[in-house]
């Protein structure tokens, strides 16, 4: 008989980063008629703090959720691997990377279904008069989130932690000279206080579908197949190397340029230093926080050195 899952999103319903999940739910409800349906109950913060959505789901309040890994790093400390990945998700499913991650998530009663959306790489955005031409951030005071704190510090920046709603105020008052954000996820309200975007981008801003493990295991094979089919279908389409993702990036770059944000592209050695430092600082921190699982995850999630 038909099973109905209780679904929630880590974003407000209708807000841009949550839309892919909502579309995915419609697709599942279309293909899953008579087998599996998702009743989308709502999104954070209306249903509570986004940081607690996955925790509550694991405890049985909901069955399936769409959230970026930052919102479940609180219960699965290995979650940042999902944004540091350098090989495609298809390869991760081949080489056992996802299986190993699932082994870890099992302990928290979480099923990793797939990465259904990707908001592009993280860029550094800078204020007027704060342009850089080298992989050197000395003298800049940057707003950070834990994603890139270590990276910016390693390049000499002073950093200031703030929540997302404070970014505008900090930039506007000149308290910070810049901030990091995913290229496709930047808030339109920040555009007037932003002048430069620094290429190359680093890491990935991805949004994942996760489920309550007990509930997942209780589903019929047919239901699981439908869910896997849709989620992994989106995962493949959104691969950073795919034509679709590249086209999305092009559109975003164009839009940013039209609103007056200039692109600074680091080249050659400087670009190498930029990307290399991003990679090294993040994985060092990751292994420090996950000494047991970290090294193996790094091996599986990055191309061999």
């Amino acid at each position: 008989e038909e099973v109905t899952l209780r679904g929630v999103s880590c974003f407000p319903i209708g807000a841009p980063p949550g839309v892919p999940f909502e579309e995915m739910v419609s697709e599942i409800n279309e293909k899953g008629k008579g087998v599996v349906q998702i009743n989308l109950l709502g999104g954070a913060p209306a249903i509570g703090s986004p940081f607690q959505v996955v925790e509550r789901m694991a405890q049985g309040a909901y069955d399936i959720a769409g959230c970026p890994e930052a919102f479940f790093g609180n219960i699965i400390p290995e979650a940042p691997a999902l944004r540091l990945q350098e090989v495609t998700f298809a390869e991760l499913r081949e080489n056992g990377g996802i299986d190993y991650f699932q082994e870890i998530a099992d302990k928290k009663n979480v099923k990793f279904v797939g990465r259904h959306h990707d908001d592009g790489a993280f860029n550094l955005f800078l204020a007027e008069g704060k342009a850089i031409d080298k992989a050197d951030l000395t003298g800049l005071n940057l707003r950070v989130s834990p994603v890139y704190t270590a990276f910016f510090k390693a390049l000499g920046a002073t950093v200031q932690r703030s929540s997302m709603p404070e970014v505008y105020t900090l930039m506007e008052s000149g308290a910070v000279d810049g901030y990091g954000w995913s290229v496709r996820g930047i808030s339109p309200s920040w555009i007037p206080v932003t002048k430069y975007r620094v290429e190359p981008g680093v890491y990935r801003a991805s949004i994942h579908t996760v489920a309550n493990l007990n509930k997942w295991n209780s589903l019929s094979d047919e239901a699981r197949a439908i869910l896997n089919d849709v989620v992994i279908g989106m995962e493949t389409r959104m691969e950073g190397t795919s034509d679709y993702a590249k086209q999305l990036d092009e559109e975003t770059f164009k839009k940013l340029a039209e609103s007056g944000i200039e692109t600074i592209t680091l080249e050659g050695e400087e670009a190498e230093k930029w990307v290399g430092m991003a990679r090294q600082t993040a994985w060092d921190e990751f292994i420090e926080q996950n000494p047991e699982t970290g090294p193996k995850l790094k091996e599986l999630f990055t191309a061999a050195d």
Partner: protein
Amino acid sequence: MEWYLALTLLLGVVCFFLFLGLPVAFAFMAANIFGTALFIGGLAVMGDWTIASLSLQSMPMEFHEAISYSLATIALFLLMGEILLETGVAFKAIGAIERLISRVPGRLSIVSIVGGTVFSSLSGSTVANTAILGKVLLPDMLRRGYHPAIAMGPIMAVGGIAMLIPPSALAVLLASISQKSVALLLVAGIIPGFLMAMSFFAYVIIRCRLNPDLAPPFETDYSYLDRPLTIAINSRRRTLWSRTYTGRWLRPVNRFLPTLLYIFPLFSIFVVVVGSILTNFASPTEAAAMGCLAAFGACLFFRLFKNRITITGIEGADFGWAEIGKALMETAKVNTMIIFIIAGSLVFTQAMAVSGATQGLLKAVTALDLSPLSVVLVMIVILLFLGAFMDQVSMLLLTLPFFLLGPSSLQAVYDIDPIWLMVLILITMEVGLLTPPFGLLLFVMRGVAPDGIRIGQIINSALPFILIELAVLGLLILVPSVATWLPSLVK
């Protein structure tokens, strides 16, 4: 559940406990439990107790997430005023202003307006402002036969200016919760604040000229003007150096020296704080913290004149660590009171949103097809009504989700200038400080006024000033540039 039922239920719970006398923060918390179980936890829709109980269990974490760094500015702005108050420097400054003003009708009322305005620019707290003027000037005024109406009214009215002229704890709260520019709002309050002070000034002069009995003129003792001026530098109770002046400039020097010594260092604090925000040199939090240090530094400077440097007619400040400790304790108390309400009401805001009450009400208002100006008027009328019964922080937090917060708020939908709207909201809240039955400054006045003054007299004395504030509000509605001109220079 229909949106208006949800709205009535949530607001009903808050108001029920509020009027029973439960402290505001706890009235919000009672509503949080209902709201979280019914709406966030979905009990009203799904009737499933698992989600509801897990939602209640995760509610406490929301309180932690509600407290953001920008709220720390409030404590700093409160501390600035408390330091000047507890060290006695504020009293000395008012004394200096008193010497400066002579031969005007209602002289002491004018002193309270000028002194209150000066102190407004040094304190983020309306209550500190009213309390200090009430303590210093009111007994003197009543003893000299001032009518209570002209004695208490200006003191209370000028207290409210503290929330318009920066530093202002409430302006920081308003802008940071609605995710608008704190700096621009602080700057926008300056002109309306001084305009308000000037209107009070004019009113007192006209009223006292028409009816001199309200403020009987009295002979001030001007003998100090002819006292020889001695300056001495001392160390360990021995005079190292001293000079006495009796020349022809003695009178003006005796009159203006206290002002030079007290007012200018204090005014420079205002310039530093507001200037560093204006020029984007520092964030409001940083400016506020530097303001605290500057206030402390100024107090230390005034302490020099207690023993180290003695000047005839200048008392100097006399304080120790105990007074600084008291200033910190007062700050902690008021800060906890404010932020406790904020933490409690943010979950409430979420419950309102998820229950559909916020959207429903906004849709209903939008469906009325009003012009943006009428929408602004509707907002002001609602705030004036709430202000009669509620404290400023609660009324802000109750209405912000509808008025200012997010892309579907009235401000966004009708494309109203947010800075202008926030200044209007601040003035409306200022009116609320004086309107019975719940007017915070009325209570403060009742606390500091001598026995025998009835609450009815206090309310009557506030009435003309409420009308003046409404007139200024009207002017700002008609001429928005009064509020938006200065911020536009900063942009």
